């Protein structure tokens, strides 16, 4: 269940309370997020929409521990991340968050296999176990036959599939997707959304996604709108069971 009124239960996977984020640009203070509340349960698929500069990506960065808020708290699976040191936050990200970026952000000099293997290098898994995990992840995204290909040898849709495999290979607590289809044509975008949908439905993954595209947002169970720094509108069921 997704709520934005700050009354979510303790069983929620993600609790956000009174989240503020301010930037100072050219001597002027900009309030990107103001007193934002959010509760997300395990297995939810949430889309964030809003105009440019509304703070969607900032919210995603804060939830992923890539940035620190000006005020408020974020608690994920019982861990309050807002007061973690930088090194603890790095460890936490490795264990709990899978990132999917708009531009895929694969390492061009590594093969698909090596790109997907990256998060596992931070674990204690043996080489053979890592190989099993990577092969499983790549097969799940339909690229079992492209393991030795470099990013430049793949289409945009395939690159994003590799990025998804990299995001899920270490079985993180939740996935953060920042415009995952923003650089793809319609067909490839549909395939990627179908894949993300499968991850939620078949594998119970929790996904938080930022998008500009209403068609993409429709795939999510819940769409939340960000305006003036707050989640002001949740027409597709926010706050409902």
């Amino acid at each position, binding site marked *: 269940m997704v709520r934005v009124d700050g009354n979510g239960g303790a069983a929620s996977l993600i609790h956000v309370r009174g989240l503020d984020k301010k930037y100072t640009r050219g001597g002027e203070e900009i309030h990107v997020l103001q007193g934002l509340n959010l509760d997300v349960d395990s297995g939810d698929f949430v889309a964030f929409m809003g105009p440019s500069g509304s703070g969607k990506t900032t919210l995603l960065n804060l939830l992923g521990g890539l940035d620190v808020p000006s005020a408020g708290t974020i608690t994920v699976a019982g861990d309050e991340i807002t007061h973690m040191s930088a090194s603890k936050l790095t460890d936490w*990200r490795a264990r709990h968050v899978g990132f999917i970026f708009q531009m895929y952000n694969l*390492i061009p000099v590594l093969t698909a296999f090596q790109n997907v293997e990256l998060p596992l290098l931070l674990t204690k898994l043996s080489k053979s176990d890592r190989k099993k995990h990577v092969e499983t992840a790549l097969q799940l995204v339909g690229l079992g036959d492209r393991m030795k290909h470099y990013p430049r040898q793949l289409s945009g849709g395939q690159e994003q599939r590799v990025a998804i495999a990299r995001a899920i290979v270490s079985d993180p607590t939740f996935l953060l997707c920042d415009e995952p289809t923003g650089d793809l044509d319609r067909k490839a975008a549909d395939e990627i959304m179908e894949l993300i949908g499968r991850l939620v439905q078949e594998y119970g993954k929790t996904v938080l996604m930022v998008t500009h595209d209403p068609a993409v947002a429709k795939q999510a169970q819940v769409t939340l709108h960000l305006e003036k720094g707050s989640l002001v509108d949740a027409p597709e069921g926010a706050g409902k069971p």
Partner: protein
Amino acid sequence: MKFLPLLIANLFRKKLRTSLTIGSFAVALFLFGLLVIVRGAFSQGVDIAGADRLVVINKTSLIQPLPLSYRDRLLRMDGIKQVTYQNWFGGVYQDEKNFFPQFAVDVANQRAMYPEFIIPEDQWKAFAEDREGAIAGQNTAERFGWKVGDRIPLRGTIYTGSWEFNLRGIYKGSRAQDDTTQFWFHYDYLDERRAFGKGDVGWYVVRVAEPDLSVKVAKAIDAEFANSPFETKTDTEKEFAASFVKQMGNIEFLILTVGGVVFFTLLLVTGNTMAIAVRERIGELAVLKALGFSNRFVLLLVMMESLIVAFVGGGLGLLLAKLFSLRGDPTGGILPYFYLPPIWIVAGFGTALLVGTAGGILPAFSAMRLRVVDAIRRV
């Protein structure tokens, strides 16, 4: 080890740039090796000089002679154990390019004065018994393909005319750095045939009873011959050798300056290369951090790249310098001691790694301090 593919992939990202940077290290360390060899060649005499030997020359100049009669006076002085004398010959073997030092020596005392030169007993005996006999160093004998029994003709330049010698022996050095380019023959043979300077010697070599007394004995020798027509200047063998090096200019300073400039330039090249390498992949480094790689890991990743370049390039340059030194003196006798000592290989390697570290440290720190949010936005 599991991070090695990432490291190698990054190094081979821009093959030409990596090759050129490795090449810069290789050239710099090859040059370093050569400078060390040249420095060693010039200062070899200083480094291996006998601690208990003094060299007595004419106070006016080395090329001015001393009378043979000084020998007995020297032997009578306190603190002197042994005396021998030598005379520069300056002959030409076939062609002036074929330079090697030739000395007319005091056969009775030469061997005992220089125990570091090893000569088989039978060869020394044959030499001593043959007035036209000669002994050549191994290096020179090998250079010209001489064998014991060969007749060696030299054209005199100071003592004109044609001089012929019977090669009766070949000496070796007991240490790698001993000079095995010399050619010795009987002083008596020279003195008998030369047209001028009869009864003169070039210089004396004196062995003192106690090395600690060297300075005192040297002063006593010079005092003994003060106010005579042939005043002397006595130095330890080390000082004597060092004065030769000084005559050729401040080799040490020259080498340090050239070496310093080379390494400083290398530092700038490495720093610039690593800075470009980091700037080009800010987005990738940010992704690594987003995935959970620590700041320290990113720092080490960049540092390791820089160090591997230094390791490979430095190693290659030093290997080439060593191989070059093994081919021997390329100058035809001017640098008889053409050798790259292992300690300098280690020093060169250490310096290369130091330059690699210094060149990579700033780019590595900037990569470490990278804020993921800012960097991802730039992709």
